[in-house]
C-alpha cells in the first residue's frame, strides 16, 4: 500500500479568496486590458506629439495641455458648448423622466403601453433615431415644420441655424434617453411603501405635500444616480452630434467628444486629442465628485 502524499493544507479563508479571484478573473482581465490599459495609455499619449497618419511620436511633456488651455480659442468655445448641452439636457431629461414616472408608475389603463412607448427610443439604434429626426427637422418638407405651418407658424431651419441647432439636438437626445431614467424612477417609486402615503393622507396632507415631504426625499438616492449618469452621458455625447449636425452650423454644436474625434482622426493630432480626452475625463470626474459631496452635505 502506497503512502498518500498530502500537500500543505490551505486555510478556508485562503481557499475562498482563491476561488473568489478565479471567479472574477475573466471580467477582471477584460477590465484591465480594455479599460485600465487604454486609460493609462491615454495619459501617456497626452504627453506626446503623435501623428496618426505618419505614426511618428515624440515626448512633449505638458505642451498639449498648455496649448489647449491657453492658446486654443476653439477649445473654450467647445467646452462652453458641452456645458450648454449638459445644462440643457440634464434638467429637462430628469424633469420629464420624473413626470412620466409619476404618471405611469401606478397601475392605470394604458400605463404599460405608454411606458413601452417612452422606453422604445432607448433600445432604438442611435443612428436610425438621428437620421429619422434629421428628416423630420428639414426646413420646408420636414414633418415638424409642416405641422407647425398648420397653426400658421413658419418653423426655423432647425439643424442649420446656429440658434436652433443646439436646441434641436438637446431635445431629440432627451427623447432618446428619457425612457431609461423614467424606468429607474418608476422602480424607485414602486419601492416606496404605500403606508407612508396612506399615513400622510390620514394626517390631511395633499398630493403636493406628499410628493414634497415623502416621495421626493425618498427618491433622493435614485435622483443622485440618475443625475450622475445623465451628466456623464451628456458630456460624452458624440453619435448624436456626428449624425445630426457634424458639429455645425458655425461650430454651434461642436462638443468636446466630437472635437476630440476631429483632432484625433481627422487632423491626425492624436497626442493633442488624448490631452483633450484627459481634460474631459477630469471635468466629468470633478462634476461627479461635486454632486456626491453636495448630496453628502445635505445628509
Amino acid at each position: 500500500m502506497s503512502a498518500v502524499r498530502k500537500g500543505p493544507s490551505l486555510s478556508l479563508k485562503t481557499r475562498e479568496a482563491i476561488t473568489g479571484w478565479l471567479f472574477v478573473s475573466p471580467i477582471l482581465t477584460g477590465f484591465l486590458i480594455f479599460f485600465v490599459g487604454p486609460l493609462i495609455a491615454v495619459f501617456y499619449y497626452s504627453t506626446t506629439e503623435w501623428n496618426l497618419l505618419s505614426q511618428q511620436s515624440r515626448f512633449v511633456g505638458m505642451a498639449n495641455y498648455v496649448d489647449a488651455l491657453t492658446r486654443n480659442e476653439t477649445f473654450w468655445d467647445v467646452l462652453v458648448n458641452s456645458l450648454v448641452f449638459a445644462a440643457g439636457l440634464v434638467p429637462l431629461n430628469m424633469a420629464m423622466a420624473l413626470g412620466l414616472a409619476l404618471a405611469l408608475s401606478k397601475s392605470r389603463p394604458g400605463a404599460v403601453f405608454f411606458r413601452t412607448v417612452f422606453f422604445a427610443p432607448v433600445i432604438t439604434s442611435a443612428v436610425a433615431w438621428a437620421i429619422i429626426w434629421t428628416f423630420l427637422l428639414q426646413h420646408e418638407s420636414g414633418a415638424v415644420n409642416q405641422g407647425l405651418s398648420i397653426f400658421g407658424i413658419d418653423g426655423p431651419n432647425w439643424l442649420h441655424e446656429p440658434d436652433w441647432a443646439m436646441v434641436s439636438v438637446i431635445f431629440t437626445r432627451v427623447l432618446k434617453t428619457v425612457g431609461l431614467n423614467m424606468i429607474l424612477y418608476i422602480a424607485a417609486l414602486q419601492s416606496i411603501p404605500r403606508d407612508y402615503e396612506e399615513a400622510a393622507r390620514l394626517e390631511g396632507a395633499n398630493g403636493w405635500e406628499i410628493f414634497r415631504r415623502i416621495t421626493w426625499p425618498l427618491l433622493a438616492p435614485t435622483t443622485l444616480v440618475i443625475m450622475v449618469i445623465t451628466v456623464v452621458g451628456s458630456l460624452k455625447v458624440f453619435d448624436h452630434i456626428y449624425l445630426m449636425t457634424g458639429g455645425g452650423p458655425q461650430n454651434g454644436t461642436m462638443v468636446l467628444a466630437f472635437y476630440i474625434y476631429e483632432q484625433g482622426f481627422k487632423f491626425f493630432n492624436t497626442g493633442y486629442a488624448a490631452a483633450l480626452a484627459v481634460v474631459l475625463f477630469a471635468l466629468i470626474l470633478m462634476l461627479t465628485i461635486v454632486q456626491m459631496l453636495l448630496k453628502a452635505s445635505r445628509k
Partner: protein
Amino acid sequence: MSDFVIKRLIYSAAISASLGFAANTAIAEELRFTVWTGSEAHLQMLGEIADSFTATHPDVTVRFDTIPFGDYVQKITLQMAGGNPPDLGWLLENSAPAFVEAGALADVAETLKSTDGYDYADFSQPAMGLWETSDATYGIPFSTSPFLIYFNKSLYDAADLETPDQRVKDGTWTWEQLRADAKDLRDASSGIWGFETFDGQGYGSRVWHTLVPIIRAYGGSAWEGDSCKLDSSLAAQAVQLFHDMVYADGSTVPPGEQGDFFSGNAALTMTQISRVSKLSEATFEWGLAPLPFGPAGDASTVGQAAVVAFAQGKHKELAAEFLAHMTNKENVAKMAAFFPPARKSVLEANSFLTSNAAVAPEQMTFVAQGIENGSVLPSHQRFPQIEAEARPNFDALWSKDADVPATLKKLCSSISPLL
C-alpha cells in the same frame, strides 16, 4: 493497437493538419482594397479586373471594401493606426499631399516601370503632378474626372426651355443662364428643385466641389501658393451668384432639405461622369453638358482620384503588382466607362467616346474636353485643417441675410495661417 501506435497516429495527424494549415495560409493571400463607391456597376467592373488578376495569380484574391465618402480618410487612417491597413485603395487629390508627406504611401515606381507593356510614359504628366516626385511614384490616377452638368431633359421639354447642350452650341451656356433655368424649372408644388449641389453635399463635405468651379469661372481661385484668394471681388461675385440661387431665387436645394436629381426631384445638378450609373433606372430623359462659362470664360474643374498602395500594407509587392495590373492599358480602358483616364492612349482613342453605353459619344466629348482644359481641385498638405477652419465660415454663408464678401474675408483670415 499499442499506445505507441496510437500516439504516432495522433502526432502524424497533428503534424499533417499543421502543415496543411500552413500551406493554406501560404497559398491564399487576400488583397484588401478600399473604395468609396457602393455602386453595383462600379463594383462589378472592379470585380472583373480582380478576377483577371486572379487568373494569372491563382493564389490571390482581391476584396473591395466600401467606405462612405465622408468617412473615407478617417477610416483608412484609423485602420492603419490599428495595425490593419488596407493593401490598396482609392485616394482623392486633396488627401494626396498629406499622405505622401507622412510616408503613408508605398513607392510603386519600380514595379510599374518594370512591368512588361505597362508604358508608364503614357500617363499625362499634368495628371501625375500630385502623385510622383523625380524618383518615386505614389499613385496612379484612375479618374481624372471633369465636373459636368446633368440636366433633366423631360423637365426642360415640359417647360419648353432650350436645353444646356443646345446652349453650348449657341455659346449661351453661362452660370447666369443656369441660374435662370433653375429658377424657371423650380416647381414648389411638385417638390421639384431647380438645382441640386454636388451629390447633395454642397454645404458639407462637397462645399469646395460646389463653389470652386463657379469661382474659377468668374476668374477667382481658392488659394494660390500661400495666399488665400477667396476674399477677392471675383470670388465674392461667384459665391453671391450661388447664394442668390439658394436664397433670393429659392431654386437650389438649401441646407437641411433633400432634393435628389437622380430620383427626378431636381432639374439640374453638378457632378461627374461616374454618377451615370445612378441613372440606369431613371424614369425621365436626361442629358449632359459641360460646366457653364463665366465672365472669365471656360473654367473646367477636374476632380482626381488615384489608386495607391499603402506603405504599411502586409502584401506590398503583391499590391504594387495589382496596381500595375489595374492601371494597365486594357483595364484603364475598361474603367474609362465611369472614370475618365489619365492615359493619353485611352483618352485619345475613339473607343473612349463609346466606352459607356449609357453615354452618347457627343456627351463623352464634353468629358474629354473637360480633362483637356480643366484644372484639378485645390489641394494642400494641411487640407483637413483648412477644411475645419473654413467650415464654420462656410456655414455662416448659408442664411438669407449673410454678407457674402465679409464672410469670405473672414474665411480667408482664418485659413491663411495654414496655407
